[in-house]
């Protein structure tokens, strides 16, 4: 062996095991999300009362064994309504966010990859749509077409898509400047092949985090729409709507306001904790990949 080969012998890397390492807060957030999903799926099986059933007890009763969160102005059981409201809230949220992430992701990746006049024009359009305040546009659209669960979903998805597209495009730009993309181009790979094989796997981490963050925004936004009366139609036990209905009588009993508010807040906190931890993990993976083998 020549001396140069010998020297290269010291150029060996150590192999390391890679596991998913979220922080404690991240696990907590994940657990919270899981609990909510379970409640959404199974709630109708074990909630003590139906959502629309009035006068299950006297109006504005306080907390008791029969009514853990008391009753509202129509005597409906707040606990049941909160539990049963989980399904419409989670469905609307995740459906809207999923649509937005898929659509926005596709647009962002294509624009970020092309980087020609299509990209310039596309980004201008994205900027223009973003410049309309979300709430205003949502109110306009929903009042134009009517309150329905799926309309709210589509509207929210439409409003979030350009914002997701921006994030996806930025992530794509980061990936596209790498030489392995040039290597694929030199091989003559098709645009579709490059987007699917080379770009997409490298932005999934960021898009997952974006999904989580957008979900948190979506819950608050949909809640705000419900609060203003532009969300799912009553008597859907949607939390924002419940808070609106309960607001006028807040001096009588705070339970009908606090319970759905807390439900919303805890879910959003859980999602944020999870998203934070996930994004730090992804950052670290990127850093490690660059510095590990030095």
């Amino acid at each position, binding site marked *: 062996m020549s001396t140069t080969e010998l020297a290269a012998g010291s150029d060996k890397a150590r192999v390391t095991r890679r596991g998913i390492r979220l922080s404690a807060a991240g696990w907590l957030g994940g657990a919270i999300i899981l609990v909510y999903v379970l409640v959404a799926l199974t709630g109708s099986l074990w909630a003590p009362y139906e959502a629309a059933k009035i006068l299950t007890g006297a109006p504005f009763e306080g907390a008791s064994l029969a009514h853990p969160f008391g009753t509202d102005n129509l005597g409906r059981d707040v606990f049941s309504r909160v539990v049963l409201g989980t399904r419409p809230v989670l469905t609307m949220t995740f459906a809207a966010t999923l649509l937005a992430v898929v659509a926005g992701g596709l647009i962002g990746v294509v624009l970020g990859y092309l980087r020609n006049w299509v990209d310039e024009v596309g980004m201008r359009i994205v900027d223009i749509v973003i410049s309309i305040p979300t709430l205003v546009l949502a109110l306009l659209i929903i009042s134009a077409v009517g309150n329905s669960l799926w309309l709210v979903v589509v509207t929210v998805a439409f409003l979030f898509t350009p914002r997701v597209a921006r994030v996806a495009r930025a992530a794509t730009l980061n990936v596209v400047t790498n030489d392995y993309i040039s290597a694929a181009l030199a091989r003559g790979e098709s645009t579709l092949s490059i987007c699917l094989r080379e770009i997409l796997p490298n932005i999934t981490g960021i898009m997952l985090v974006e999904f989580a963050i957008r979900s948190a925004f979506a819950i608050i936004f949909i809640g705000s729409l419900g609060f203003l009366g532009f969300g799912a139609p009553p008597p859907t036990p949607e939390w924002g709507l419940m808070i609106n209905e309960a607001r006028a009588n*807040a001096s009588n009993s705070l339970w009908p306001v606090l319970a759905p508010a807390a439900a919303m807040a805890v879910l959003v*906190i859980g999602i944020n904790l999870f998203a934070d931890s996930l994004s730090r993990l992804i950052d670290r993976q990127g850093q490690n990949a660059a510095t590990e083998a030095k």
Partner: protein
Amino acid sequence: MSKLVLTRLGMALLSLLAVSAIIFWCVELLPGDAAERILGRNATPESLALLREKLNLNLSAGERYFDWLRSLLSGDFGVSLVADRPVLDYISGRIANTALLSGFALLLYIPISIALGIITAIYRGKFADHAISVIVLIFMCLPEFVIGILLISIFAIKLAWLPPLALIGQANSFGELLRLIALPTITIVAAMSAYAVRMMRESLIEVLESSYVLMARLKGLPTWRVLLFHALPNALGPAINITALNVAWMIGGVVVVESVFEFPGIGRLMVDSISHKDVPVILAISMVMTGAYIATNLIADVLVILLNPKLR
């Protein structure tokens, strides 16, 4: 540099134009004929035809759009269908109220978010950072209307320190005005600051851990000098962008807060107008809000360009 600014200005005006078209088209979709809505049960075929003529409903949507655009440019916002007053007249008082609320909120928000952002960045990983971050996280996860209702329950109902509704039209003195506007202002500030603190912390940390700040320290410069002259000027750009983002949020979020406190501002007027299908007012308020958003972004962009020697 002026070329850059002019391009931005041009883009802003173009955006405004495009938005006007989008909003007009959206409002066009509102069901029901405006004339029918106004006359209601008193409608006769003749009065309907007369009103339609008066409202130009016989023209095509495109013609009505350009008509409206033309009057906009000459300062005529049309007449409110509900109040039967010139729109500008009708909404200017409201705009002033909302501007007052936003102004107060900004005044409080800027020092709070900058201070907290600096503290959490400098003491990152230590107790102060964790404590502040937890509080900020909680506020960030509460929708504005929840914060508002909670504040009302605690400070207006339980403690009775402040009035629950912000009917500032009834204020007789400046002191009373402040009392009425306090809760909605705090609500907005709490919601906005939460985001801002987190974003500022990130961008400040990036600056604090940069090579040039390290170099400044290795030069043996006192800490205040490093922070004030090497770190801060480079953190201003991101800070301005963050603030612009939050102001943009506020323009939309003010709608919810005004509804909670029944504050007589354009946010609440917007919701009411949509319920009553008062088209000219809807259009006017949408344009005002979007215009404010675009103007904010433009100012932020220009400030960033001015501050960054690389772009000048």
